[in-house]
């Protein structure tokens, strides 16, 4: 078996300084291969964005300390010098942000921004880069790409802007694209189109995609594998079909129930009581225990380890979960 494109082992991110320092992400370990779409799911504050940014060390600095190991294409990312890191960003790992309006430069034409990324990374000369930018805009499905390349971001609609943002992410032909809530700001009819675009780009370029989202509908739409984060840790990882059919962690099941919006017999929506803990409030036991319906005495004192469970028929994809009393039966 070949080594995966990205291997993450024991990745921990501490944010803040001094007494205010908190561990936002603890002991993260996962792989992503070429041609694969991995969804990282969690509520706000679960550490999903911190984890994604840590992969290309975007949140490292006085207020952010990273430890553990990130291997990208065999390169140890956490030990790279600044110059090599600059090459990695964009050419190795690129990001697409949620709010394209805020991420794009409002004063520069869309085509120029994309071309600039290529020139800065030394991939191309200007005229060639500018031509390539138009080709990229065509690839992401913008009609009349030559004309659109000469427009400013505010002249595009929300969906078009997100497509331009994806084109910018693809500019230096990265091996891994990280998309952080790429469709949250979009209307539902446009959302499906952008997801379809991401899926086709991954297949065409044989690249890897990490999709960060809180929306299980988005996960079901295009992900191959799901990784659920809660309070900075992975609580479950499974192939997407298995995840929705037979989640083992109570948090996964509760989220799936909350997402399939329907009133119960008493005329209420399914919900998860309480809210996620703040990083400084997490105790020794399972972080989900205070909200969990099947909590038992040991849950509040023992933190369950993330363990691999063999499953049949999922093409060798592991099913991992961290729960002392996992759910045994499939979801109806």
């Amino acid at each position: 078996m070949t080594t995966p494109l990205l291997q993450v082992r024991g990745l921990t991110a501490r944010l803040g300084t001094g007494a205010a320092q908190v561990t936002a992400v603890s002991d993260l370990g996962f792989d992503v291969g070429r041609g694969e779409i991995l969804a990282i799911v969690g509520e706000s504050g679960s550490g999903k964005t911190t984890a994604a940014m840590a992969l290309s060390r975007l949140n490292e600095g006085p207020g952010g300390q990273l430890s553990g190991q990130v291997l990208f294409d065999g390169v140890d990312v956490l030990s790279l010098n600044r110059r090599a890191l600059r090459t990695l960003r964009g050419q190795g790992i690129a990001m697409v942000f949620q709010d394209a309006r805020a991420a794009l430069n409002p004063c520069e034409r869309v085509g120029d921004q994309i071309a600039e990324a290529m020139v800065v990374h030394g991939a191309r000369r200007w005229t060639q880069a500018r031509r390539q930018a138009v080709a990229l805009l065509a690839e992401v499905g913008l009609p009349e790409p030559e004309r659109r390349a000469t427009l400013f971001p505010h002249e595009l609609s929300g969906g078009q802007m997100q497509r331009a943002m994806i084109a910018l992410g693809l500019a230096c032909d990265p091996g891994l694209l990280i998309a952080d809530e790429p469709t949250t700001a979009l209307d539902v009819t446009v959302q499906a189109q952008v997801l379809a675009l991401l899926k086709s780009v991954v297949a065409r370029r044989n690249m890897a995609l990490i999709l960060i989202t809180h929306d299980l509908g988005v996960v079901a739409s295009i992900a191959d594998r799901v990784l659920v984060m809660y309070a900075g840790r992975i609580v479950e990882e499974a192939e997407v079909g298995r995840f929705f059919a037979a989640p083992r962690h109570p948090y996964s099941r509760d989220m799936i129930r909350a997402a399939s919006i329907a009133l119960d017999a008493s005329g209420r929506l399914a919900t998860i009581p309480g809210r996620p803990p703040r990083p400084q409030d997490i105790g020794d036991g399972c972080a989900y225990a205070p909200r969990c319906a099947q909590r038992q005495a040991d849950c509040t004192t023992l933190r369950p380890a993330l363990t691999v469970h063999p499953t049949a028929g999922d093409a060798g994809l592991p099913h991992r979960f961290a729960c002392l009393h996992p759910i045994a039966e499939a979801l109806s």
Partner: protein
Amino acid sequence: MTGPLLSLHDATVRYAVPGGWRARSIAALAPTTLDVHQGELLAIVGESGSGKSTLGRAMLRLLPVAGGKVTFDGTDITGLGRAALSALRPRMQMIFQDPYSSLNPNKTVGRALTEVLAHVGVPRAERRERAETLLAQVGLDAQACARLPRAFSGGQRQRIAIARALATDPDLIVADEPVSALDVSVQAQVVNLLLDLKAQRGLTMVFISHDLGLVTAIAQRVCVMYFGRIVEIGLADKIAARPAHPYTAMLNDSVPQPDVVAARATVAAASRAGVADLPSLLNPPTGCAFRSRCPQATGICAQQEPGLVPHAGGGLVACHHPLA
């Protein structure tokens, strides 16, 4: 059966587009006729720019109405002045989308509530206790009174905004995307709270949302908007099961389901459909505004704007070729 609590008759809202000598106005809300019945939960659904928030604000006269009539409980409020509107405001309240910007960051929660109570004439001695009762009703404890909004999470802030809306003991609440800024698990909590309060107090509620899946689950009637117009109104279960307008059907099909088979079919259909060509309010199309995206569109759709008329399945639809 009593008459509607609120009704709009050909109500129109226009926004000014600045531009010096080329200044003009656009019809953000085309002439709209709609009744909100006593005690119902009416949902207004549409994508961004569809005019759903404009409609919600026009209902409460938070915006000047350019034409037509708005009636609240038998009173014509279309042309009411500030003072007269201010006297009516306690009976109709609004909950906004973003609980981070709808609460004054410098006012404690207690102060935000007692000010409203003072406005509706609650004696000073009772205000504090009433504020604490309101907070208890939305699931917050009395200590919240002394704290500033920044001490609370998004879901808790939205609870405070709900308590503030309830402080005047209103008959009608218009909630504009009250849960879209919240996490999924918290969304359901806040929706349940609104449903409980509505049942306990016999409130009439207008729930504005972009999420057709959510509103068809909780509302009695759903009103679908596109391009500043109502394109379909009907009972929630009918809208979900058998939509009459092609746009409603498109929205129904686009809701991403947490179900692998259904969600993949949605994405596959979207990649076949290609990129939509959206109409512009500055340069409105002739005929039906939805025709550029409509699979059923024919010649007549470009010539004549369809009116909102009853159709066989019950409810109203504005389409030349409604789905059976």
